[in-house]
């Protein structure tokens, strides 16, 4: 009896993992479908307590971002996760201090090629007030494999789980 239950669990796990894998692959495939000619985006990022404008930047992998910055109140930062970029934005100044790969330079524009897909948060890196740790924006670089694959997996879990229950779970006591 225990061996049967174990076998049932094992098969259930295989079914579930299989469904999950197939849907994840479909999700990634759908995300990667189509070609995209790289584009250039001129973006003016405004930072203020406790927001970035634009709050979300959406581009495609291979696109070039030409970022200009402005701070509306106090000194803010623009730390881009996963990109080794930390910009200090003084108020009332066109020039910003951009720190990349250990080097710091004063510039009016930061040029960045979106080479990796996914969601990357940009955060204020200069303490600016009470909610400073939560001052964030989002750079979403398509195709977003992680989102597509995880969303497909969530649907796969639902469908695979219900299918497994329908096909494998024994009928118990009558109602």
């Amino acid at each position, binding site marked *: 009896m225990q061996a049967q239950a174990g076998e049932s669990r094992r098969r259930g796990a295989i079914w*579930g993992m299989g469904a999950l894998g197939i849907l994840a692959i479909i999700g990634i495939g759908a995300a990667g479908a189509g070609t995209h000619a790289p584009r250039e985006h001129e973006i003016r990022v405004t930072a*203020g307590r*406790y*927001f*970035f*404008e634009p*709050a*979300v930047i959406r581009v495609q992998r291979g696109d070039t971002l030409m970022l200009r910055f402005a701070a509306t109140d106090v000194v803010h930062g623009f*730390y881009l*996760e*996963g*990109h080794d970029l930390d910009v200090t934005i003084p108020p009332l100044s066109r020039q910003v201090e951009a720190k990349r790969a250990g080097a710091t330079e004063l510039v009016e524009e930061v040029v960045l090629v979106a080479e990796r897909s*996914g*969601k*990357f*948060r940009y*955060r204020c*890196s200069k*303490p600016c*007030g*009470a*909610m*400073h*740790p*939560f*001052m*964030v*924006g*989002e750079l*979403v670089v398509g195709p*977003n494999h*992680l*989102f597509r694959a*995880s*969303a497909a*997996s*969530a*649907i796969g*879990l*639902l469908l695979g*789980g*219900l299918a497994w*229950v*329908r096909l494998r*779970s*024994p*009928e*118990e*006591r*009558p*109602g």
Partner: protein
Amino acid sequence: MNAPAPCATTRTVDLLARWPRFAWLLRRRWFPLVVAVPLLVLTATFVSAGLVGTPVGNRNGLVVFVWILWWFLLIAVLVPFAARSWCGVCPVPLLGDWLQRRRVLGVTFADPRQGKEGPGTQIGRNRYRGASRRWPRRLSNLWLQNLGFLLLATFSVVLLTSPLASALAVGGMVAAATGVALLYRQRTFCRFLCPVGGFLSLYSMSSTLALRARSSSVCGDCKEKSCLAGSEQGWGCPWLEYPSRMARNNACGLCLECVKTCPHGNMSLFVRPPFAERRLEGLDEAFKAFLMLALAIAYSVVYLGPWGGLKAAANVAEAVDWRAFGLYAGGLWALALGVVPGLYLAAAWLGRRLARTPQVPARAAALAGASTLVPFGLLVWIAFSVPLVLANGSYVLAAGSDPFGWGWNLFGTAAIPWTPVVPHWTPWFQAGLLLVGQGAGLRAGWLENRELYGGRRRALLGFAPTAVLLAATALLLLALYTG
């Protein structure tokens, strides 16, 4: 699943049998006090930092240690792997314990057969100072904890960012726990009032650690019932539980008194598979699950999301825009008390209709549906907490050396700059956690519904709407975290 059977099965490990030295440690009267007292000193230090230290949240020891380090350890480490072990060492009720017991290490033993003279109130074989009243039966549930947590959650931005507000909140909890200890018996505050205890109660069900009796027959034959009544070796269960019949983690604060008092050595700690308990016993518990999910979603939007307007609305202490805050608070309460419970209750109702089982009580169907949110909610809270510690964990090193923000450098780490640690991996961690939570939630909900509805087909129909809603919730959170 939740029958009062012993925990010793093939899939559990009896820690005290396996490690006799660990058993020896847990049976000492000075354990876990030896952990709780240093924590009390640390808490007093950090509360002082909140009161008189720098008002800059991310440089103040109280804000940084409580809301980054403690919170993450609690929700992502202690609850999943050590149940309510925090409650066992929590410094908040220590003063109240002492006022009740008038003992630090010792036990006031009084055999009830030899008369009840002496100071204080006799409960079982122990005597306690204070009024030792019984908590009203109609309040012996999670409703007050639900309300208290929602109230605190409404002002979470103030708590998270203002050292003074955090100090007043922690200090207020100590004062409340002490006051309640003077009026009501044992750990009434922890059991029925502590806002943190409410969600620890719910999510400790998913923990891999459980304190249980080894053998129900030993307990059945036991005449002393020392775990309940106390003995010379220890106090009767301060959590007002009957430890030998305990089948869920919810109300066990892991104070370990029953391990000390059991004359048969029958109480032990067991390691078990995760998500082992799933049954909710009342609508108060179901609403705790709804409330916690709603708050996790709301916090994910407000704190982790890019919407500055929402942050400004929630930040009433700084922005002082009461109209915007009113809208924010109204939305939060509507989500927590209306939208999330409404959707999950409607899904359970719809499932019951689809299964064509009017004999199944609507309340039971609602509880079976809400059981999906025990593992799922815990994993959502961990997913929410991951970026807080990855992005802001380095503040702990700086504030540890200078908790008051007065320019100290106790451990040479005060000047460590803000250094996020692999913050770009956050969406990957979050996606993985959400999927594990969804899987565990589906399993919990299915098993509960199968037991409730009996037949497979009816159970499938009964559970399907909740399963779809759970998947939709997971998709919403995946969109927030990774999309």
